[in-house]
């Protein structure tokens, strides 16, 4: 009972009440995140419609292998984290920590591949939309636009990844201090929702970046 009272905030009538509020808060936050990414996807598809060949030329320059590996890495990371959630539901704090560390490391692998390897290649090949842009006419303008979306989309997604890593790290920190049990694991669930959402965004970005127009 003492453990329950230490985690329950004063405005709630019960731990369950608090957990429900926290989880619905995160769902609502994720709804706002959907609407945050929405205009990016809308503008992306809309601009592609008017600059199809340029976007195709841009998409053909992207690194499909890194993108695909990263997709697998990210989805696996979420899977492992979700396993961790079911372990703590059963009260196994040690396995939760192991899962979180695994998920965290895979997230780091994603960031390294994305920004350490792929972005570096992109800059070396002069694909950043600037005056020395590598793709020449007739598709220059459309390809420039494609890479505007590419860099903005991956940067914003990457920022969400970094926030996610901080959150997962925070869960590891708290789990090591034995704060979670079968009776209280709301933060673990809440962070899990966020961590899966970051996947969802990537699952929309992946075809927009690497697949559509590659075969054209």
């Amino acid at each position: 009972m003492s453990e329950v009272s230490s985690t329950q905030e004063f405005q709630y009538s019960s731990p369950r009440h608090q957990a429900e509020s926290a989880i619905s808060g995160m769902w609502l936050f994720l709804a706002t995140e959907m609407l945050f990414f929405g205009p990016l996807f809308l503008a992306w598809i809309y601009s592609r419609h008017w600059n199809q060949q340029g976007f195709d030329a841009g998409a053909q320059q992207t690194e499909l292998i890194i993108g695909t590996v990263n997709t697998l890495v990210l989805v696996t990371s979420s899977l492992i984290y979700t396993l961790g959630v079911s372990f703590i539901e059963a009260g196994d704090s040690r396995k939760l920590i192991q899962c979180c560390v695994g998920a965290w490391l895979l997230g780091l692998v994603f960031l390294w591949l994305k920004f350490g390897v792929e972005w570096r290649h992109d800059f070396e090949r002069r694909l950043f939309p600037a005056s020395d842009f590598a793709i020449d006419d007739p598709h220059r303008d459309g390809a420039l636009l494609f890479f505007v979306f590419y860099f903005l989309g991956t940067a914003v997604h990457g920022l969400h990844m970094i926030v996610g890593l901080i959150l997962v790290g925070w869960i590891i920190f708290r789990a090591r201090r034995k704060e979670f049990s079968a009776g209280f694991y709301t933060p673990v669930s809440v962070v899990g929702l966020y961590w899966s959402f970051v996947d969802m965004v990537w699952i929309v970005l992946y075809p927009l970046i690497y697949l559509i127009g590659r075969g054209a």
Partner: protein
Amino acid sequence: MSAVIADTTKHAKSYLTDGTTIRSWLLTTDHKRIALLYLGSITLFFFIGGIAAALIRYNLIAPRGMIGSAETYNRLFTMHGVVMVWFFLIPAVPVTLGNFLAPLMLGARDLAFPKLNLISWYLYILAGAAALYSLIAGGVDTGWTFYTPLTTAYSKGHVVATIVAIFIAGFSSIATGLNFIISIHTLRAPGMTWYKMPVFLWSLYATSVILVLATPVLGMTLLLLAFERIFHIGVFDPAIGGDPLLFQHLFWFYSHPAVYVMILPGFGVISEIVPAFSNKGLFGYKFVVWSSISIAVISFLVWGHHMFVAGTSLYSALVFSILSFMVAVPSAIKVFNWIGTMHGGSVRFDAPMLYALGFIGLFTLGGLTGLFVAALAADVHLTQTYFVVAHFHYVMVGGMVSAYFAGLHFWWPKITGRIYPEIWGRVGAVIIFFGFNLNFFPQFLLGYYGMPRR
């Protein structure tokens, strides 16, 4: 039992005196204190926006202008718009009266996420600092709507700083809206069903739905805008394959619902005050609450009426015109219900009620002239004229600011434990009503005869 009650009263401290250090205020998570923090900061921005407005009017005294160049004038009205929209009108009632009253009306001890509430204030302050920086550094000349390619290719002002300010302010709004929605869902006192909630909470709820669903769209749109401005490449510039209309669609998808963010809490305030000073219950409670909700829903479907002359298709314009007319229905329901509440009641004309009556008159005029500009043919004549300026100031200032002052007067004793001098409250209400009409009614005529805005 009586011993327990006596015990609690002995220890009960006012939230105002419970900790008097600056630290106890800046780190508070008490919704009442956060409401006061917000009240102070919002008042500051209200004055900044007001000074800009006064300078605009001063400049208009002479045909050639009284201060500086046309560009200075552009910077003035932009700063007036940016500050008033994002740093006063949108937050005003929800973060002050809403923060203070929502938990009290719900019968909750605080909002669902008190720390998030404090974070939202810090975000607001951060955003305000960025806005002040861009103001002091010289301002922007784009207008508060940031139309492209003017904003991204031609403007010489501090566009990026202003965009950053609005971007951050947006997250402050989202945090507030999210907190209200979750609180209303989960923290209602036992036995308080939805239809037993005070009507102010319903209007806060409708407001929060818009805040939470529309503001993120603005966030990403501003990111795209900043990217285009910084790297001189982007999605809204027709010179490089972009589309300026896309910007207008995205911007108004946020900014039209945002208009209802500004006015819906005002409806809630008036719906509380009119019954209180008529000694009667609110007439047609369910109609009032559902008209709030339907305004929130329809508000997402009318953005195209800002673009009637921008080159959108005639058929989409027809649909947007019809949908814009539909907003008038729930708005009119509210006005009739307030009048129905007063009918047969014993009405007292105290200061809050005078503001509320001013609100009803001015909002009705603002709303009805909205129908003029929602009509396609009339809008072609009236768009970009002072008629539009007068229309939205009747809603925003005549409506919203009146409602804000009405609410401040009404709940002032609750907030501070003191009563204001009644006579000065009444004098203020009357001066604002007549002064406002004196200022803005001629603008309807000027605009109708073709005087362009800006």
